[in-house]
């Protein structure tokens, strides 16, 4: 019987060596070590052995089993690694085929710029106000200190619906509407984004465009505060190294009034074509709210002061993204929109 066991071991080891696949090894194991396996069969004959022989044969049988189990485990490990290697090899793909991601949409550059401006001013505690795009002459002009037949009306050629109603030419009427609502409470801190309309149509003018207006009224608001708020805005919008420059100007609803320039975003102030070699770009109009406008809005200009500013969103977007023709913004060509 010991002979039998030794012969079995030898035979089994040879067979095991021939196994190439995991399945072969498993089948081998069943064949030798399973319930009906060859080793089991041999051990069934143990009963006929003498009591002296039994422990010896038993020990040998265990040795053979352990040895085979050990070899099987070793082989299985090797084969698994080999098989994984083969699988990975067979699974390699052409990484240059195009990706299959979902299509993405884009926000219009103008609405992105408006959101950005909104967020900068919300950070400074301003809320957002809106107003009608079809507006009364009163709010669009008169409440802003631009009476009928005032030459300042030439600055803004309007679309009229009736003699008293027009498409608003700026977002400023919302100043007057807001004051009517909030008087006599302070502070008033609003920005007003929206569409405005003027009778102009060329590469730098569109009959419909967007503005963001700002208004702050409180006790002791100073021109120097206007400078501070606008500098803060310019730096967040165009970069931390931005400078601003205020030039005296005229708007009927502010006094003192200013045109505000930022250092040229293209050349950083050195001078280039975009800034006509001046190093500066005109970006918004601003000023201290005219006492007459405060009075008409129901505030006492001796008690409160305020500043207001307004900027063209298209202008900001064109500078920010290097767009040279305003009409592109309203053509909505997907090849243009896709770039934002």
């Amino acid at each position, binding site marked *: 019987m010991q002979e039998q066991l030794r012969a079995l071991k030898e035979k089994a080891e040879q067979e095991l060596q021939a196994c190439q696949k995991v399945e072969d090894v498993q089948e081998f194991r069943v064949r030798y070590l399973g319930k009906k396996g060859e080793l089991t069969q041999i051990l069934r004959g143990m009963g006929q052995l003498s009591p002296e022989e039994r422990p010896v044969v038993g020990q040998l049988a265990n040795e053979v089993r352990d040895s085979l189990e050990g070899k099987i485990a070793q082989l299985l490990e090797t084969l698994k690694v080999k098989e994984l290697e083969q699988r990975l090899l067979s699974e390699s793909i052409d990484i240059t085929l195009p990706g*299959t991601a*979902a299509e*993405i*949409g*884009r*926000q*219009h550059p*103008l*609405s992105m710029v408006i959101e950005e401006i909104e967020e900068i001013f*919300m950070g400074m*505690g*301003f*809320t*957002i106000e809106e107003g*009608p*795009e*079809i507006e*009364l002459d009163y709010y669009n002009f008169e409440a802003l200190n631009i009476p*009928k*037949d005032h*030459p*300042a009306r030439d*600055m803004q050629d309007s*679309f*009229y*619906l009736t003699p008293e109603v027009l*498409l608003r030419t700026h977002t400023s009427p919302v100043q007057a509407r807001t004051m009517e609502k909030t008087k006599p409470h*302070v*502070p008033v*801190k609003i920005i007003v984004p929206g*569409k405005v*309309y003027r009778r102009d149509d060329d590469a730098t003018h569109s*009959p*419909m465009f967007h503005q963001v207006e700002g208004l702050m009224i*409180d006790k*002791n*608001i*100073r*021109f*120097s*505060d206007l*400078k*501070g708020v606008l500098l*803060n805005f310019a730096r967040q919008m165009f970069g931390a190294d931005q400078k601003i420059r205020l030039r*005296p*100007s*005229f708007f*009927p609803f502010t*006094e*003192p009034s200013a*045109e505000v320039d930022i250092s040229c975003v293209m050349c950083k102030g050195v001078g280039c074509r975009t800034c006509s070699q001046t190093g500066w770009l005109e970006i918004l109009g601003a000023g*201290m709210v005219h*006492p007459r406008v405060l009075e008409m809005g129901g505030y006492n200009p001796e008690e409160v*002061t305020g500043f207001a500013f307004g900027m063209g969103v298209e202008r900001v977007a064109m500078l920010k993204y290097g767009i040279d023709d305003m009409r592109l913004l*309203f053509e*909505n*060509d*997907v*090849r243009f*929109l896709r770039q934002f």
Partner: protein
Amino acid sequence: MLVSWKWLKELVEIEKTPEELADLLTMSGVAVDGIIYPSIELRNLKVGLIEEISPHPNADKLLICRVDIGEGEKRTIVTGAQNVQAGHKVPVALPGAVLTGGKSIESAELRGIQSDGMLCSARELGMDEDKLSPEQKEGIYLLPDDVTVGADVVQVLNLDDLVLELDLTPNRADCLGMWNVAREVAALTGGKLRLPEVEGSTEEGTCAGMTRVEIQNEELCNRYVARIVKDVRIAPSPLWMQQRLMAAGVRPINNVVDVTNYVMMETGQPLHSFDYDRLRENRIVVRRAREGEEIVTLDGQRRQLNPEMLVIADAERPVALAGVMGGQETEVTEQTKTILLESASFNGPSIRRTSHALGLRSESSLRFEKTVDVQLVRWAADRAVQLLSQIGAGMAVDGCVDCYPGRPPQEEPLHFQAPKFYLAKSHLPKAFSWADNIDTPFAGAEQGLSGQQGERPPFAQEGEFEIKELSEEFPEEQMPQELWFRGRPVIRLRFRRVNEILGTKIKPVEMETILQALQITFLEKDREGWWVAPPSYRRDLEREVDLVEEIARLYSYERIPTTLPEGVTTQGQRNTEQQIRYRVRKNMVAQGLMEVINYSFINKARLERLGYPAGHPFGDMVVVKNPLSEEQAVMRTCLLPGLLDTVKRNLNKRNKNLRFFEVGKIFRAEGFPEQRKLPEEEWCLGAVATGKREKSWAYGAEEYDFYYLKGVIANLLTGLGYGAEDFALAAVQDYPGLHPGRAATILLKGRPIGVLGEVHPLVLEEFEIDQRVVTFSIDLPQLWADEEVSRKVLLVPVTKFPAISRDLAILVPEEITAAEVEKLIREQANEWLKEVRLFDLYRGQQIQENWKSLAFSLTWQAPDKTLTDEEVNIFHQKIEEALAARFGAGLRR
């Protein structure tokens, strides 16, 4: 306003370069848009006298001139021009000269004759041809007889002058006159003013006997001055005057017209000259036009007048449109012997209305619109008469007629409208006696005229000015509101107020220096501030804040500090509406749509192509009265036409697969304008999709169809916080512009919020679009109606117990909709049913005709335990039975 550098330098001392001055002006509120430099540096050009002309022996079209250029030796010059004669003085380019366009001149042989230079045309000299008469443009530019032979042509013709282009804001109309530009420069630089002296006229004299002036409408004309010049000889004006006019952008005509234009350019006061003998009864009536009257204006146009318009008439008929343009019948011509010069002050708004109504804008109306200086009126007339005499255009008739209904009382230097006055007469500084002659040109101008301007301010001299502290005796609230000094408002200026508004610490003495430079008159002073009066030419200065601005701009905006507001901190945020619009945009973008922005106005015909019935809201349009074109004639009542135009534009550029959305307002008249309220404006979300997601190597093509957009809407609504069950569609057959079999009302919690559908083929045809387009629109206010939804943070707790997913494929007759089946499934289930998703729809071979197979995936999940198959099976059993009972549906396995 175009400002000749040389002219300006004559009026005020300037030590800066043109570039430096331009920068200074720009930074203090008179923007210089640009500097026009001479086109080329012209050299070697001399004035030549043609002594003799002979034909060229070898060429018909050439002439040989013998020209004296002051060298002793005469030069021979060949020319092709036909307008020269012996005795003419002409510009001669000598060898070595370079002309406009880079043409350089050398001695050359022309058909056998040596030509020692060239005679020049205006164009070759770089002159602006728009400013020249046709004769001056043709051939050689002929110089006047009084120029010196041999003189440098560049000097003679001022060709090296440069011009500053001022971009004036409406408040600085004063700078439409050279003298006021000079005053501004003097205020900024401290340079000495050198304004010309003018001899004033008196109201008596011969003139008063020759004409009368009557103003019938004082509200439209508060001053009219007439002066007369006789023995008029019409001729070209002198070269220097022509050059200055050309530099200012005005075309020289003749001596009389040129003088009126010249004085207008000097002072900003428009003048007009009439042929005195053609005025009926030789008199002037200023009145409103009568109904039915007409006039032929100088430009040859016959114009219908109405009583809204102010005219200058003679005894019988209108002879000029006041302040806008003269009439042809009384125009000054070669035959004119005597002229009547008009200098007047008209009501700005009235001039503006008239010029707008007639579509006629002139240099004159441009200035009157902005209101000219009433105190300048007589003085400008005197200046014109002085110049006419000086250039030999005629003989001044002494005296003037000065009709001045708004004249301030002569004897009362300070006159005011309030009943009480804070300054007793005895308090008046001695200097007030200067005001005795109220009619000197303008406050402070007497100094200017005598060359002292800029040296001392009026009334501020030691000893002349008595400083009184009046604030206790006369509390502020008792101060009269309106106070006048020489027709100008008296302004209270408080030191503290200046610094409060600006955020500065400017000292009163600094303010004083600035105000003095601006020729502001100091009337009185107390501890807190001054009472001052601005000069008459600064009509824009009316109240305290106007002076604060003057101080700020001369102090320089750059020197004002940069601070942040000091008040209470406030919270910046978007309101509900704004938040929802923001989230809608982000959601649509995340779903792969591209945002577009279309014009709010559209072509009415395009809107009508949608084919809506009478009375439909789409037809309730707001119409723009003065659109730029038909394309922008009405306000959009829905977003679809704009979106279809965008699709069309993209298809034209071969962009075939498109997914767009727009968030914008639509407009409906709703009774406007009959009912006195503004039209309705409503925020709207619109979307269109067309084409397909193109097939790739990895997956098949997917049409952008009805169901694509339906899915977009479902995602949008769940993204905003609604439940899937809140959203449903209801078929609609007759929605304008949509396919009757493929259109639905969008229901949110049972209420309609918009419409989804495929665009009607006929509409697509109208828009010339040859592929299917699907669209939806949602009234956004419907979304912020559910405020609680938008504010709710919709977090459903994620349970830790696994979900069981089961598929259910059923056969139903064609007419049963997916929604009906889904509804039944949900009715039979309990709250464990989390999702019902249709994943397949099949019609075909294995199924009987007019039946379809719907395959649903049902997801079951309990919050508190792991569901077993058995528990779910019970429900599936119930569902199957109910489906069979209701629809005769069978399972498909």
